[in-house]
């Protein structure tokens, strides 16, 4: 097992990793910016190294500084967390080249899944269902027209190198194709410095379902069920649940096993999540996240596993300690992401947290780096806490989540708690009658 690891991240996810290390007797070093020296993850680490000024480019994304910190602290592994450098294959490679263990998948897997067209081609090759589409960049209108009519309208034009919902055009009929195609290329150029676009079948009101995967270096791969993350606001997941309230056991089993088999074919290691759109009973591969995910927590609750500890185990060269046939759903779990933001405008809300009091009691897990007197900085992501509610069934889980959100006290900054409460009180949510567009369509 690794003896001392460096956590190259901050906030609640750094804290999550520290907790796993403490439970495995692994020593911890965190790197932090000058803005973060009083953060909870710095307080709870065995050692900390200040690596630069507040801007992430100069600190959390500064690869030489992180490697130097690992060197001077004598770490033997580096965990990239979520975001930051987690899906940067060069970073993974540099970490390995410098003799540290990168706690994540192999650089080539990170690399392959980073490019959307490459990822889709690979997915198709290893037997995953993909959305009918161009399979390569569309250079001109003529090709666009041919592709669109062969797959049938409506279609969607996407930037090959993009993300976050930018540069996306939906075309319902051929007569709107030309203008949208040209616009999409222009926006792609502006947003991502590259005008490559591709075309896919557009799914009208799909749900977002993803499968959790883990692998060890012996080639053993397991799936740990699925999660549904259809509750999104402006393309950001805000409420996730496990299991999906929409899938029956048969569908669940099928997509999980299909994903597990696909990952075996590429000898995938460590953690990963394969994301699908689910529409009319069919799954379509969207992308694969070659890292831990924010919402790994609900899978942990439902399947009674510790994904981060298992990640550390397999990164250390150990065999998966979890057996596929021993994994069973024991309950239902829902996570809410608490963001420091104005609940209406969604503008970030920063400053001093005057009072912090998290909810407790049965079935409530809080992953947060907040404390009374801490500061929420404008330099970083607004995700400040995760409330994970677990109950014997979906109803108990929702009722518990409701009472936990009512107990939560965060004073000094604004949060999206009022918005989250509004969502879980809606009949559509309670009846699991939603898709990825539902939240954006809520009027009052």
């Amino acid at each position, binding site marked *: 097992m690794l003896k001392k690891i460096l956590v190259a991240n901050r906030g609640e996810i750094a804290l999550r990793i520290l907790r796993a290390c403490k439970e495995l007797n692994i020593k911890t070093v965190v790197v932090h910016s000058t803005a973060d020296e009083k953060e909870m993850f710095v*307080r709870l680490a065995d050692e900390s*190294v*200040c690596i*630069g000024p507040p801007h992430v480019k100069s600190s959390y994304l500064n690869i*030489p*500084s992180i490697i*130097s910190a690992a060197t*001077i602290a004598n770490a033997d592994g580096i965990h990239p967390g979520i975001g930051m450098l987690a899906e940067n294959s060069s970073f993974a490679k540099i970490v390995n080249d410098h003799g540290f263990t990168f706690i994540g998948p192999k650089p080539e897997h990170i690399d392959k899944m980073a490019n959307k067209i490459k990822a889709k081609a690979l997915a198709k090759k290893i037997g995953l269902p993909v959305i009918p589409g161009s399979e390569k960049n569309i250079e001109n209108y003529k090709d666009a027209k041919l592709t669109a009519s062969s797959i049938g309208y409506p279609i969607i034009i996407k930037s090959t190198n993009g993300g976050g919902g930018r540069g996306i055009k939906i075309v319902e009929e051929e007569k709107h194709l030309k203008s949208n195609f040209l616009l999409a290329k222009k926006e792609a150029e502006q947003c991502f410095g590259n005008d490559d676009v591709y075309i896919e079948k557009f799914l009208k009101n799909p749900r977002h379902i993803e499968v959790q995967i883990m692998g060890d270096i012996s080639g053993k791969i397991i799936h740990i069920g699925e999660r549904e993350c259809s509750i999104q606001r402006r393309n950001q997941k805000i409420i996730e649940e496990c299991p999906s309230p929409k899938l029956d056991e048969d569908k669940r089993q099928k997509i999980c096993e299909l994903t597990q088999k696909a990952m075996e074919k590429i000898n995938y290691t460590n953690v990963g999540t394969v994301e699908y759109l689910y529409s009319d009973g069919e799954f379509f591969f969207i992308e694969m996240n070659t890292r831990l995910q924010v919402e790994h927590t609900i899978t942990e609750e439902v399947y009674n596993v510790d994904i981060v500890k298992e990640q550390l185990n397999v990164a250390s060269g150990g065999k998966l300690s979890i057996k596929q046939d021993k994994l069973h759903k024991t309950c239902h779990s829902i996570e809410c992401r608490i963001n420091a933001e104005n609940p209406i405008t969604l503008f970030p809300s920063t400053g001093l947290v005057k009072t912090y009091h998290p909810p407790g009691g049965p079935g409530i897990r809080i992953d947060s780096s907040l404390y*009374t007197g801490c500061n929420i900085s404008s330099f970083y992501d607004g995700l400040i806490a995760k409330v994970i509610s677990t109950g014997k069934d979906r109803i108990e889980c929702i009722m518990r989540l409701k009472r936990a959100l009512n107990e939560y006290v965060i004073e000094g900054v604004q949060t999206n708690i009022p918005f989250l409460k509004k969502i879980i009180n809606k009949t559509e949510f309670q009846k699991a009658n939603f898709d990825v567009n539902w939240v954006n369509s809520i009027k009052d």
Partner: protein
Amino acid sequence: MTEKINKKILDDIEQLSKAMEKNGLSELTYSEGKAVYTLKKRENGVFSEFPEIVEKNNKEIKTKNLLENALKSPLVGTAYLSPEPGAKKFVELGQNVKIGQVLLIIEAMKTMNEITADKNGIVKKIFVSNEAPVEFGEPLILIE
């Protein structure tokens, strides 16, 4: 101030302090005639008993006391005070240095980064020892 801080004054302070506690005040000024009392209570509590925190606080104070105008480390790495093991140090205490003169080397990712003087002056203090790890922003050398 010519008066002696006698027991009465200390008693006054104690009484005012108790009144602050009782009334939940963080600051209190009271004057009458020539006497002026200003009392402030420390912002209490936040993790003061947390061992890690105490450590950080000490560190902070140390850093603050180390004069603000010391040359700070621009990167994380290992400090070397001589060009190679056993060689003469780049600079010694009390030595005159000029802008641009190499003061020490910081190794980061197997690369040697020369740290040079940012002003002319005398080396008043060297804060790091040879082969010691340094953090970003840590004081290295004081030139005056």
